[in-house]
């Protein structure tokens, strides 16, 4: 749900930004027509630009999802030696596993245990 809200926020921000740009261009051409000097944009256009930028940035960060932890060691704390030590390219198969094979064949339904545990 929050994903679609974020998407609409982002879209709204972009549209407002485009609208502010268009009105700024229109303002300048108006000044050119009436031969006035161009000093600065009117305050409401500036406010609209900044507000729409913030809206778009907020929308993007919400869509992008959760931030990762900045401290690298926190991420690594979850790793265990049991999995880190496994080297898939170097797996050997001459262990005792094949002796257990007949026992494995007679077992039933143990796979579901792993599914529920995870």
């Amino acid at each position, binding site marked *: 749900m929050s994903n679609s809200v974020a998407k609409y926020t982002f879209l709204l921000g972009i549209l407002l930004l485009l609208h502010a740009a268009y009105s700024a261009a229109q303002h300048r051409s108006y000044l050119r027509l009436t031969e006035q000097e161009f000093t600065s944009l009117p305050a409401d256009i500036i406010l609209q630009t900044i507000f729409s930028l913030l809206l778009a940035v907020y929308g993007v960060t919400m869509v992008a999802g959760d931030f990762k932890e900045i401290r690298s*060691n926190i991420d690594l704390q979850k790793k265990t030696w049991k999995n880190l030590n*496994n080297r898939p390219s170097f797996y*050997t*198969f*001459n262990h005792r596993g094949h002796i257990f094979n007949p026992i494995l064949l007679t077992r039933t339904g143990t*796979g579901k245990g792993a599914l529920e545990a995870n």
Partner: protein
Amino acid sequence: MEKQSKHWEDVRDLFRNWREENCRQSEDVVDLWKEVLANHFGKLGDEGWLVLEQVFIAALDCHSMEIANFCLSKLNQEFPDSMRVKRLKAMKYEALERYEDALDILDLIIKKDETNAASRKRKVTIYKSQGMIIEAIKELTDYLRIFMADQEAWMELSDLYISQQEWNKAAFCVEELMLHSPFNHLYLQRYAEIKYTQGGYENLEIARSYYAQAAKLNPNNVRALYGLLLTSVHMASNSKCPSQKKKESIKLSEWATNQLSQLQSSNDSKLFSSQILEGMGNLQIGNDSKN
């Protein structure tokens, strides 16, 4: 039946998780494959080939040759000229202990494609399975001369050296790993363990500093905490230790004991015992004991 059709997506996600984490739970993989995924194989799409490879290796581990042959034939059907599938065939010969056939296939692959890293690694594994550790080490060092950034290979080499009790060379390999990921507390702990095993006052010092760094990075690493406790206690009771370092070591051992007792009380584990912690402090190597 309905329960199974709801679950197959969970099983697929579980398999993906296990692939990324390098988990070697072969029995569970084979069981789950037989019960759930084999019936829904068509729905897996491209991921199905990765799952087939995973199930193939798990089946070799459990020595379920029918499943292994089924996976291999399906992969062969889809990718008839693939080096990767040929390598899996060599793995099957390895599992059946037909090492010469496996070596033939691998040599063929290497001749066709000099850059194929995985086949060279399988050759090392074949030597290792036959117990020819020295040849395995030689093959692996040649491999590492070409492919220097392969972390798996460095880890494997350090394990091979440890089995041959060549502590210096094993420490060198772990140093390479630490260069790649200096914030990984497990590599630091492993290095400290090798240095501690070597023994001698200087190595104890090095071990203590690496254990301290590992404990700093991950205060939940019980093994690093125990290592810190033991090395600082041994250093403090060593005659070569200057008094300032002795005080430092005693403080470190007290900190480590506190951390361990905190972890014990928070985990409420029956395996931990405060008696063990107290007993650890009294552990001495035979020659140093003055009691």
